[in-house]
């Protein structure tokens, strides 16, 4: 059933191409000079049908689901959904849908069965309606395109106009993505701030998002001060940078100036492998190897170490960032003009002195930009900390303690929960908003430094 509109579309596109091409061919055979090649007449018709109809079908399919859901839920008998929160309403809907698909569990109420049937009926009607609409639209466009065929018709310009429009649309997707991120985060954050005052969120030192699920449940009120979460993020980021920056920088210095060419060409791909390892693998590495190693080392020298220390998560994140920093530093060092190297060597400096006194200072802006990008990566990195860092927010700067991060909280708050109407899930969006703002500022700043630096030596 879903395939039918697409089949109709393909048929119409092909028909449009063939019909217009033949019509243009007929004009040419009569001896008139065509402005455009006959292929362009065909393409014009095909594109004229393809673009609007495909857009129509996709929009329809996206909107069809929610509309039918709403109609089904609206048609339920009065009182069926009373005193159900949104999560329970979702469950009812899911049950109705599985009934509609013929999967029966237990003995459902009659009104649910009726709703299921109604769901099937509406879905079928929608499918037919779509097919008819597509057919009408396609035929109309086909006729319109055919009517345009004439000797002087600029089909090539028409085709190129449509292609240009498509390309411009493609370019704006990036903008729409950004807008989508900003709008969705802002919207959910505002809803969150309706429940939790902004000052509590920004300056509160207590993060306990476990709010009661039922009214009568005895539980903590729920506290949403993000300071301990951001403190944890900072601790882990610092640990990661303490690992990544020295190792990455010294690797880059060695590779850029001292390594024999053979070694350099062997080492760089290996570092790229480190960069290509998915972060979920690093996360597993942290819990499988690094955390136990740190723990047993701590025990051997008599220090009590938490099982999910900031040290393990941050250290592994540092390993992940090594290739990032080293390749940025290597690029920055390579961008320093040869004239400066020659100048330093010509004055009789050793290569080591040339590196530390001329090359490295000259490359510093580029390197700083790279380190800043690494910071933003560390702050936004998710899987390593979700797997290896803690869940409890603590105001501590001790790397041997267990801390939590912004990303960990986002993931744990949202895993397995679908309703968007309690502060707990909305808090995740508020945290996401903060994460987005912080990383965006760092990124813009870093990219600007890097760009300025490149221009300085171009």
């Amino acid at each position, binding site marked *: 059933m879903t395939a039918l509109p697409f089949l109709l579309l393909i048929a119409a596109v092909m028909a449009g191409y063939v019909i217009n091409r033949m019509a243009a061919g007929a004009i040419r055979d009569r001896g008139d000079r065509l402005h455009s090649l006959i292929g362009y007449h065909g393409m014009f018709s095909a594109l004229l049908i393809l673009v609007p109809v495909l857009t129509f079908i996709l929009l329809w399919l996206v909107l069809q*689901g929610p509309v039918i*859901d709403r109609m089904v839920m609206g048609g339920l008998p009065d009182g069926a959904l009373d005193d159900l929160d949104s999560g329970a309403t979702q469950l009812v809907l899911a049950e109705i849908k599985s009934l509609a698909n013929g999967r029966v569990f237990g003995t459902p109420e009659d009104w649910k069965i009726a709703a299921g049937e109604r769901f099937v009926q509406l879905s079928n009607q929608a499918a037919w309606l779509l097919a008819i609409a597509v057919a009408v639209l396609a035929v109309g466009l086909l006729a319109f395109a055919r009517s345009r065929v004439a000797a002087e018709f600029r089909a*090539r310009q028409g085709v190129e106009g449509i292609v*240009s429009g*498509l*390309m*411009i649309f*493609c*370019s704006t*997707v*990036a*903008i729409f*993505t*950004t807008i989508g*991120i900003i709008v*969705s*985060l802002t919207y959910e954050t505002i809803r969150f701030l309706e429940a939790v005052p902004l000052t509590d969120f920004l300056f509160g030192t207590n993060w306990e998002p476990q709010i009661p699920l039922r009214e009568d449940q005895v539980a903590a009120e729920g506290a949403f001060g993000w300071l301990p979460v951001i403190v944890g993020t900072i601790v882990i980021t610092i640990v990661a940078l303490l690992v990544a920056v020295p*190792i990455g920088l*010294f*690797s880059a*210095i*060695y*590779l850029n100036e001292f390594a024999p060419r053979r070694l350099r060409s062997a*080492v760089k791909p290996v570092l790229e*492998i*480190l960069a*290509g*390892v*998915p*972060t*979920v*693998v690093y*996360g*597993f*590495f942290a819990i*499988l*190897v690094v955390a136990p190693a740190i723990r047993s080392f701590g025990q051997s020298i008599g220090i009590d170490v938490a099982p999910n220390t900031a040290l393990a998560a941050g250290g592994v994140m540092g*390993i992940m960032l090594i290739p990032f920093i080293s390749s940025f530093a290597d690029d920055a060092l390579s961008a320093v003009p040869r004239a400066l190297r020659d100048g330093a060597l010509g004055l*009789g400096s*050793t290569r*080591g*002195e040339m590196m530390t006194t001329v090359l490295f200072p000259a490359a510093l802006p580029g390197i700083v930009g790279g380190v800043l*990008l690494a910071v*933003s990566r560390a*702050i*936004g990195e*998710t*899987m390593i900390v979700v*797997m290896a860092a803690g869940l409890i927010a603590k105001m501590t700067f001790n790397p041997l303690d267990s801390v939590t991060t912004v*990303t960990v909280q*986002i*993931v744990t708050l*949202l*895993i397995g929960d*679908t309703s*968007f109407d309690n502060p707990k899930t909305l808090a*995740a969006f508020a945290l*996401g908003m903060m994460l987005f703002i912080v*990383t965006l500022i760092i990124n813009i700043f870093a*990219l600007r430094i890097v760009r300025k630096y490149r221009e300085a030596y171009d």
Partner: protein
Amino acid sequence: MTDIANVPGGPQRASTTDLVAASLKRRHRKQQRLQWIGMGAISIAFLMLFILVSSLVSTGWQAFTQTHVTFDVYVDPEEIPEDRLPRGGFDDALAASLGKMLPGVDMSDRKTARAVEGILSNGAQFELRDRVVADPGLIGRTIQMTVPVSDPFDQLNKGLIARDTPEENRRVTNTEIQWFDDLQDAGAISKPFNWALFTNADSRFPELAGLKGALVGSFWALLTCFLIAFPLGIGSAIYLEEFAPKNKLSDFIEVNINNLAAVPSVVFGLLALAVFIGWFGLPRSAPFVGGLTLALMTMPTIIIATRAALKAVPPSIREAALGLGASKQQVVFQHVLPLAMPGVLTGTIIGLAQALGETAPLLLIGMNAFITSAASSPFDSATALPTQIFIWADSPERGFVSRTSAAILVLLGFLVMMNMVAIYLRQKFERKW
């Protein structure tokens, strides 16, 4: 010019050479030290990679085999009456038959019978059920079956449970070890390649859990991602590189794309959750939504790679074609784009490889559900390879540790393959202008 200090060959000159000579040893030592530190840094990075890979291989390789037990099963009509199919006491029939292989076991004792049954994987009874349902004529006959053993015995066979640990700290009792040794002596134990790792979907039981669901889910997600990100990315790159007027808007788009490439992946997950699932009402846990999200993340990579590839095509080719009277679009689509295609494909494959390993956004849209069958369309619930790794890494059962490592090795295998294709393309079509 009568300044003494300026006269060449004066005392100053001699001392310069001496001063330099005196400092040389120290300075070269300093340079040597810098080199040693550099080599040390690289060695640490290599060591980390080595530990990472070796720890994965050493824990993961054993998941590629699975201990099986082969024995004769009497399909007891009392336990499995034909009229009750597909229900029946398949587990009891299996346990009774297995008990016969073990000398001195009293199967009438319920506790012992339970323990004997525990040797077999929970999946064994379903295997028997499927065979009997397919051919009810088997009832009352004795058939030979090879079924997986349960996780503790698998671990025991692979030497992951040390026999010399005290019994109370061990997951298998002394009696159970004795049974297993008896089976081994009888030649009933085998350890073939673990095909189930690729043909089974997820399961609560480590010995039955496989990656099929995750592989299928990742396939659908990547396919969706490719179908969306590839045309959008190329279209956008061509426009920005070849057609866009240099104005504030195209500058803004460019800055936008660069920043988008650096937005944390979890934020894309939030976007997908709020917009695709919350507002558009697309299904949760569906690879289609995952692919859509990954497409948004992959697009900047493809755009940047495509623009670089287009830039590398020399202007002489454009001028030659324009000079022949081709329109600007004809030049780009007929001449420039085909020449840039290897670079575009390389960038796309690298982008897809990144997408394949991406985990956090998939977690947020619920692709970490426990799903025991493979998705048949991109709209069904599914997991993906990286989220499956996350689920297994979170599982408390010992057996899942090596499964997780094995799943990671499979994932890394795919990534290596994709990167090799990219490198091959780059080298094969690399052109020197």
